[in-house]
């Protein structure tokens, strides 16, 4: 046991002396967690609004008011330009899309009955189609607001009504039945509005419906903030770096000859690998502990259950000790082991949600992710931090992690090359 401790202490000392290794096991994961946490939380506040350009070909007060309205909305960042410029901006990727307000837009907007409908022309950057839906939604809401305003402001509405009546009488191709109806309805409506006392309070009564959007804030079963999502991801990177670092260090012991010394010493082979495993476990558990402690102190992470956080960290630590053992047999040289090891880990992270959160991935990708220990690590951590997992819900990811750890450790120790070829 003393020998194992001596071995483990030596490895920890070597790790602390290796500046690059220390960067990747601690600072890089921290950077990752803080960086992505900051990005996501900024997005939540609407700072990364859609960047659109408006071409106002109408140039009326109403169209200008509409542009101002769009600009006020938190989802959009609006600038104006000529049509040519606007198309160019989108083409060059400087804006997500453009919106053209055609001549007559101001007049047409908010007209409730009859007349030409308002044709808004929009153009989207094809690579940003996901945002096109969002833009359409925002536009619809603003167009609708024109109508809503009409109802809530009787004098505007009455002006609209008389214009509409004139349109109806002037139009030649309107269905006679519809025209008769409108010629009856519009004056009645006009009289009705004239009766209304004008005032804000009363105007409200006419709003057909109102949409109030609120941030969904369900504390239990949801992350407290974006850092509760980004920190588990950062932790994974730290744990993977530990795993790779120790796996490579086993190869280095062989290539630099120190493994010979260890084998000559009066200790068994399992002591040698055991010492590595313990040192590795101390870091694969220590790095997450340190990162999460920082997350709690400085970034407002509030785990649901500390006990489950420990269980998650321990399971994940064990899993990646096994993977360390596996990585140590993947290359004969330090470079080969490092290259292959990181390639394997990167793929694990990629499909396991260590780079891009799983919930934004397509379903087939989410299925593949079951094969990645990274997925189960993140799930276990999230389960303990914000998914409010019960002990039995924790069992699945943790059991998978521990089983993976034991299997890979066993296979790795069996395949380990003791002598330099």
């Amino acid at each position, binding site marked *: 046991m*003393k020998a194992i401790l001596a071995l483990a202490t*030596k490895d920890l000392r070597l790790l602390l002396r290796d500046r690059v290794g220390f960067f990747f096991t601690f600072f890089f994961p921290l950077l990752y967690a803080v960086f992505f946490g900051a990005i996501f939380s900024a997005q939540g506040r609407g700072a990364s609004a859609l960047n659109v350009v408006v071409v106002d070909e109408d140039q009326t007060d109403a169209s200008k008011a509409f542009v101002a309205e769009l600009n006020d909305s938190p989802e959009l960042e609006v600038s104006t330009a000529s049509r040519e410029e606007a198309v160019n901006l989108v083409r060059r990727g400087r804006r997500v899309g453009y919106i053209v307000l055609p001549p007559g837009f101001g007049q047409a907007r908010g007209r409730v009955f009859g007349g030409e409908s308002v044709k808004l022309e929009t153009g989207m950057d094809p690579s940003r189609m996901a945002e096109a839906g969002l833009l359409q939604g925002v536009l619809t809401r603003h167009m609708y607001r024109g109508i809503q305003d009409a109802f809530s402001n009787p004098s505007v509405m009455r002006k609209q009504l008389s214009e509409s009546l004139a349109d109806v009488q002037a139009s030649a191709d309107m269905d006679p039945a519809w025209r008769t109806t409108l010629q009856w309805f519009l004056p009645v409506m006009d009289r009705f509005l004239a009766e209304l006392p004008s005032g804000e309070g009363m105007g409200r009564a006419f709003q057909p419906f109102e949409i109030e959007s609120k941030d969904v804030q369900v504390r239990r079963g949801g992350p407290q903030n974006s850092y509760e999502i980004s920190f588990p991801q950062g932790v994974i990177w730290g744990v993977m770096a530990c795993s790779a670092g120790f796996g490579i260090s086993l190869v280095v012991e062989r290539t630099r000859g*120190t493994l010979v010394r260890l*084998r*000559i010493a009066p200790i068994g082979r399992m002591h040698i690998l055991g010492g590595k495993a313990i040192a590795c476990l101390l870091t694969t558990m220590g790095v997450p502990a340190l990162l999460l402690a920082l997350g709690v102190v400085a970034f407002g992470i509030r785990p649901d259950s500390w006990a489950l956080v420990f269980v998650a960290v321990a399971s994940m630590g064990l899993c990646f000790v096994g993977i360390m053992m596996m990585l140590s047999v993947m290359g004969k040289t330090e470079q080969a082991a490092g290259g292959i090891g990181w390639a394997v880990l990167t793929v694990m992270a990629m499909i396991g949600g260590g780079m891009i959160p799983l919930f934004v991935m397509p379903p087939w990708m989410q299925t593949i992710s079951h094969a990645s220990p990274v997925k189960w690590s993140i799930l276990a951590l999230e389960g303990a931090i914000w998914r409010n997992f019960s002990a039995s819900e924790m069992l699945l990811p943790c059991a998978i992690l521990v089983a993976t750890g034991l299997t890979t450790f066993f296979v790795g120790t069996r395949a380990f090359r003791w*002598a330099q070829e």
Partner: protein
Amino acid sequence: MLTLRNVRKSFGRIVAVDDLSLTIKPGEVFGLLGPNGAGKTTTVNMAVGLLRPDQGTVEIQGAGAPDQPRVRGRIGVAPQALALYDELTGEENLAFFGKLQGLTGRLLADRVQWALEFVALTDRRRDRVSTYSGGMKRRLNIAVAMIHAPSLLLLDEPTVGVDPQSRNAIFENILALKGKGHTIVYTTHYMEEAQRLCDRVGIMDHGRLLALDTVEGLITAHGGKSVLFLEREDGERRIETDDPLRELVGLPNNGALRRFRLERPNLERVFLHLTGRELRDA
């Protein structure tokens, strides 16, 4: 102290050690002399349990085979390829390997200090090994082998890449250890080293042990006669003789001898005789 009986080891088609038998006596300095690829390192590796012989047995007297960890505690090895942690200091390397040998506390600290003094690295003990010169690393490599005062010490080419000064320091270390009763196995392809240090020498080539005796014994058996070169007014003469002094004294006293040169048989000649090749270009 150490007995190898009919050991054989091959790597693929290469037979590295072929049916080698050897007994190292307690307290002696034993030299294993042979050219590159002779099988010296392979022999050492089997002796310390790093390699398992394909055939034959290895035994540390009174303890058993070195593939048991307990038995290995009696052996110290300085591998031919340096085996040190570059990012640890000299002192930390010694302390770590000392702990693996079961040393602790006061005893460990004393042994570390002794080993550092022994190889004259006390003033560099707090520096990382990566900052050491090649010779210093060699010396530390030996010191680590001795940290637990093993009764049997195997040094595999401990003087490779070492300047004459450090080499002398290493020789003195080895003689000092011998004086303290340690048994030492020393491999080299420098015959002067074997001749200077070793009580007995085994000559190896192509995995076989060709001869084994004291330096004197080897020379007597395989070195041939001394050669006396005489330069006289009437020309040169070359005389092979067992007793050069008698030859010189017995020369006709005509004052015509200008100078003479004596070539005594050495291990180089022994090797030439045994293999038909020079050791240095073997």
